[in-house]
């Protein structure tokens, strides 16, 4: 009983739902900006492309960029971990079961979403938060984020100041197959996250355009517009 939403929802039938709470939105934008900073500085750290001449004592290019990378890494780590914690504290659109499909309904929604993306079905199955397919994809992204944090900490540990508690993370080094492999994984992870960003922005624009429900705006405002039917279906799911 999936209502087609080819046209904008008439104002009389439009219900505004608070989907993304403030912590979710703050975490989201912290992650976005920290990834952009991390990717730019990380790319330089892997391939120092700025030419510096003169006395070494007059410059600190790599040093400065590494420090920016580490500060951005702190923001990124805290934002990702906060968001993971919020999966167990936030509203139903932020919860962990939005990412890992556990119910029959969510699995069905995953299948229907795949049909939509493959042009088999014309309109996306109605959901308010993430569709089940997107949610599952995001759980992989969280996995990549954790691997980035882990490899980053493993590489940072040996260069942390003597006596720093960060040195403790050296225990992670063998888990990633040694520092050179950790470096390679960290590098590949950056590209996966950048590729994901391309997909994520496109999918958001697509869904926003075909559902007319302010998906794009929702990550700033926190609100989406839905029909009474969709809202009723979602409440059923949470009651089940």
């Amino acid at each position, binding site marked *: 009983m999936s209502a087609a939403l080819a046209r904008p929802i008439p104002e009389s039938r439009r219900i505004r739902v608070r989907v993304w709470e403030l912590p979710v939105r703050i975490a989201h934008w912290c992650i976005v900006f920290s990834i952009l900073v991390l990717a730019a500085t990380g790319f330089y750290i*892997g*391939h120092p492309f700025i030419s510096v001449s003169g006395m070494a004592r007059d*410059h600190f290019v*790599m*040093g400065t*960029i590494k420090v920016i990378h580490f500060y951005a890494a702190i923001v990124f780590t805290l934002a990702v971990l906060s968001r993971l914690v919020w999966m167990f504290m936030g509203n139903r659109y932020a919860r962990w079961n939005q990412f890992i499909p556990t119910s029959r309904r969510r699995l069905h929604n995953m299948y229907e979403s795949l049909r939509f993306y493959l042009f088999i079905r014309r309109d996306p199955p109605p959901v308010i938060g993430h569709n089940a397919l997107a949610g599952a994809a995001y759980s992989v992204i969280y996995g990549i984020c954790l691997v980035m944090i882990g490899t980053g900490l493993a590489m940072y540990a040996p260069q942390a100041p003597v006596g720093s508690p960060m040195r403790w993370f050296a225990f992670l080094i063998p888990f990633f197959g040694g*520092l050179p492999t950790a470096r*390679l994984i960290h590098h590949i992870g950056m590209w996966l996250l950048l590729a994901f960003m391309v997909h994520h922005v*496109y999918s958001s624009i697509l869904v926003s355009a075909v559902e007319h429900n302010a998906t794009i705006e929702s990550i700033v405002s926190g609100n989406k517009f839905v029909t009474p039917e969709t809202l009723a279906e979602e409440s059923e799911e949470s009651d089940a």
Partner: protein
Amino acid sequence: MGNHGWLTRELKARGVSRREFVKFCASMAAILALPPPVAAKLADTIEKAEKPTLVWLEFQDCAGNTESFLRASRPTVAEIILEKISLNYHETVMAAAGHQAEDALYKTVKDHAGKYIAAVEGSIPTGADGAYCTVGGKSALQIAREVCGNAAATIAIGTCAAFGGIPAASPNPTGAVAVGDAVPGLKNLINVSACPANAENITALLVYYMTMKQWPPLDQYRRPLFAYGKLIHDNCERRAHFDAGQYVEAWGDEEHRHGYCLYKMGCKGPVTFQNCPVVRWNEGTNWPIGCGHPCVGCAEPNFWDKMTPFYRHLENIPGFAVGTNVDKVGLGLTAAVGAAFAAHGAIEIAKRKLGSGSGQSEGKKGE
């Protein structure tokens, strides 16, 4: 064996002055990161120390560690310590041969059981029931079990013995493994990795044992922390150029001649733990980075697989041809994802334009 005064006699016989001996003790104290006053105590203690009994086994090796250890330059105090230690068995340097030599080895194992030190150079092959490396009719694995199993301590000298090294590099045709993996549960296993292991570190390790009557603190790979506790990068003389952003771009370029950082030439100093920048090689003459060559990371596990290509920053992705690199793959992947979504968008728009008359058109295009 109460053999007091052996060292004094040896020094006198070799014409080494007391002054030179104290200087040696000072340098040992420095390597072990002990304060200067300890040097005098070291001198006293070494003189009174018992003469340790050592057997040196060679398996799948190139004898490079032996070469490093013997150092064919002027005789030094270290050389006396190392050579005049009761070295009861060493294939490369011993005069005995055949059964006579083997008898000396097994006599030591029997007479000094639980008291001698086993030094092992080279990896141990496990393939073909150990047939790839046999000495006197016994496989390396059998010898290691017997000799290392009865030793007070086993020192795996060089990366092959410590981590498998070059024989264990992919595809590892002989099934080579490190000593610690070949004979699990060895008492006091100490890995002194690097290709070859630095003689200064081997000497310092023995001096530590002789004077402190115990083995030094080890890292997670069982390497002595005094030698493997810090990244090469953190003590590198070119570090200022790294932080400034000044790098060698090509062999022999202006930057190379200025002694800039070798990071972009694939230097593995940032991922390798050893004290090379401080101790250096060949009696402090120089070390690889000091003469313009990047570190190849020889002291780390699996260095032949993990640190290659030596002159590039990242290792090769398994399964990809040599010459491709992560950035090309990553850029290509990002572009491909972008193109896929652009195409998806174009189809979506086209579909909507075509299908706008018919309203619901589910399944129309799927067939």
